[in-house]
């Protein structure tokens, strides 16, 4: 709980710092807009402050605490005004409580309680253990932030991982495996979801009654995709939040073309680019619309200036990550698009998730993503039925009330088309969801009157929130006991996380200088030794292509300094059959009887997940020559 309080304090400092920065933009932001824009700006600045420490090799818990103390000192003179602005801004969000809003608040609180349990439980999510938390752990160990040859993900945009680095550095209690840091890191991701909720309220409130703004926020905060992501150290909610902030500032520029709004839109777009490559779609969408405005005859001077400010701000706030990747390995979006940059992973597929890319499937997407989320990466990231149910009513009955309807529609369609063509994971649809919710709620506010139909639609909205709340409780059902302290973290992890007990054994029994080649374990966070994913190592070095015998493979691995080999057999037991003949993954299966010539088995562990998936770990030590 102390980490949640720490997180709230840091979020307030970010808002305070961001509010100061915002005053330099000379924009007439409403108090509630100041809160959300300020908090978003402050978190982005904090991420870059951590990066600066890492780039100068001064990264350690004490310098991280120093950054926060510096922030506090900077904000100290204005804390009173910041607090007043916070009260004034949230004061504009007051609504009259009645039976239906009370029910919706109740459902939201149930989902919020489940989410809190999820935040307090240790991290077990795949990508978090693979790199969102694993990289910050290495950065802190090495006191620097930069390219890590065994981790191609270290060339991704890492703004959120900077906040995770801060969290692991200052979380209480610290030290591997950073129990407190895990909670704080989750809180930062949750905070971006809250900022987005605030942005949804601020945006809807300008065009509909505040009650609708809250319904929009509740819908956002309880949607399974969002509530399930906010309880992890993934980055997608942050991506959605920064895209929405950019979108909101851009809408304000369309209303009153002050340069400050456009610069702010560009900065948030840049921050979104610093979170994940996918932001390129949203940024490109806004850019294309601006170009369209230019050709449609909008004030040429003003629009050209706007485009310039937007691009400059995008580069200033997010360009670093792409230039870094390009300089390091010749591909700004490493390891994607090998065909263009001739650097990266040529085996990456863009059609392994979702439905075949046909025109009919594109038109069926709204139905299929709602009803069959299992085709798009699973029930855990589903978007629920609200948008499909209500958007038609919102558009038909309330289109005239939706601000800049043309831009919003263009943005949604543009994003949807590229999402359909590139990677049909529901997680990647996240930047679109808040825009759809805003359109739905503003339009629906026109439709939901006191007629039978209006009351019926309102009932359905409440019923959807009820379903969302139930799904949130179901999703986090394993977390309640550990969150309440009724179950130890060790026990929880040994039951839910496949790598935990193996990592514990390794941390206890192998010497600190051990170097383990993991074929192919991606959950690396809990290992407190040097670990390398075999697939990444093979992609970078091509060792499997250079070797021409079993002994040759072992020699190459030994030359790299590997002392141990960890083999994981999971769901895809046949995957090795496609590997090159002298790749260790294939040799270990195909020529199992020869393994004893080069390796000594030292540990075996079977794991059965709560879902019933079985995995087998086998740890070998390279034989002494």
């Amino acid at each position, binding site marked *: 709980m102390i980490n949640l309080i720490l997180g709230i304090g840091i979020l307030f400092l970010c808002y305070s710092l961001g509010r100061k920065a915002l005053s330099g933009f000379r924009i007439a932001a409403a108090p509630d807009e100041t809160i959300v824009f300020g908090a978003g700006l402050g978190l982005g600045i904090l991420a870059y402050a951590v990066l600066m420490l890492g780039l100068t090799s001064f990264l350690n818990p004490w310098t991280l605490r120093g950054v926060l103390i510096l922030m506090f000192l900077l904000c100290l003179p204005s804390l009173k005004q910041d607090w007043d602005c916070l009260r004034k801004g949230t004061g504009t969000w007051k609504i009259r409580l009645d039976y239906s809003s009370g029910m919706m608040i109740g459902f939201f609180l149930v989902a919020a309680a489940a989410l809190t349990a999820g935040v307090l439980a240790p991290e077990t999510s795949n990508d978090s253990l693979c790199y969102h938390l694993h990289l910050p752990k290495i950065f802190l160990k090495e006191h620097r932030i930069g390219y890590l040859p065994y981790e191609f993900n270290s060339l991704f945009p890492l703004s959120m991982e900077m906040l995770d680095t801060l969290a692991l550095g200052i979380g209480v209690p610290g030290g591997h495996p950073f129990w407190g840091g895990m909670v704080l890191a989750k809180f930062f991701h949750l905070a971006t979801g809250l900022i987005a909720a605030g942005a949804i309220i601020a945006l809807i409130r300008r065009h509909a009654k505040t009650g609708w703004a809250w319904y929009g926020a509740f819908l956002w905060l309880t949607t399974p995709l969002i509530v399930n992501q906010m309880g992890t150290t993934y980055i997608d909610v942050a991506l959605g939040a920064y895209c929405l902030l950019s979108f909101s500032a851009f809408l304000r520029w369309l209303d009153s073309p002050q340069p400050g709004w456009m610069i702010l839109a560009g900065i948030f777009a840049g921050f979104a680019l610093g979170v994940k490559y996918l932001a390129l779609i949203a940024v490109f969408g806004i850019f294309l619309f601006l170009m369209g405005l230019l050709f449609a005859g909008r004030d040429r001077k003003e629009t050209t200036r706007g485009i310039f400010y937007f691009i400059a701000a995008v580069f200033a706030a997010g360009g670093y990550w792409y230039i870094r990747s390009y300089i390091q390995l010749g591909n700004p979006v490493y390891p994607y698009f090998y065909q263009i940059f001739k650097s990266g992973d040529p085996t990456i597929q863009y059609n392994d998730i979702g439905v075949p890319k046909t025109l009919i499937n594109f038109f069926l997407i709204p139905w299929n993503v709602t009803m069959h989320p299992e085709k798009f990466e699973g029930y855990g990231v589903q978007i629920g039925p609200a948008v499909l149910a209500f958007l038609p*009513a919102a558009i038909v009955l309330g289109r005239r009330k939706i601000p800049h309807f043309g831009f919003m529609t263009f943005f949604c369609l543009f994003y949807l088309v590229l999402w359909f063509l590139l990677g049909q994971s529901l997680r990647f649809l996240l930047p679109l969801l808040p825009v759809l919710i805003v359109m739905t709620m503003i339009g629906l506010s026109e*439709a939901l009157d006191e007629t039978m139909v209006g009351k019926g*639609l309102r009932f359905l909205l409440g019923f959807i929130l009820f379903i969302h709340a139930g799904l949130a409780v179901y999703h986090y059902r394993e977390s309640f006991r550990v969150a309440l302290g009724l179950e130890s973290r060790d026990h929880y992890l040994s039951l839910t996380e496949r790598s935990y007990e193996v990592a514990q054994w390794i941390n206890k029994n192998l010497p600190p200088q051990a170097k383990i080649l993991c074929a192919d374990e991606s959950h690396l966070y809990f290992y407190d030794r040097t670990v390398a994913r075999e697939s990444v190592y093979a992609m970078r070095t091509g060792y499997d292509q250079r070797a021409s015998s079993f002994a040759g493979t072992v020699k190459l691995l030994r030359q790299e300094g590997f002392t141990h080999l960890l083999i994981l057999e999971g769901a895809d037991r046949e995957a090795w059959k496609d590997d090159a003949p002298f790749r260790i993954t294939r040799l270990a299966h195909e020529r199992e009887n020869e393994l004893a010539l080069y390796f000594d088995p030292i540990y075996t562990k079977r794991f059965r997940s709560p879902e019933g998936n079985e995995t087998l770990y086998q740890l070998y030590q390279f034989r002494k020559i």
Partner: protein
Amino acid sequence: MGGKGSVKRWLLFFWAAAVVAFFIKFMWLNKILSALVH
């Protein structure tokens, strides 16, 4: 509220209700029915 407008509003309501109903069907009903059958 004219007749046409009213029909449109009812249709939109039925669409929303149908989406929620199908969502429930795909989420749970299929699983429950299959569990009962087997």
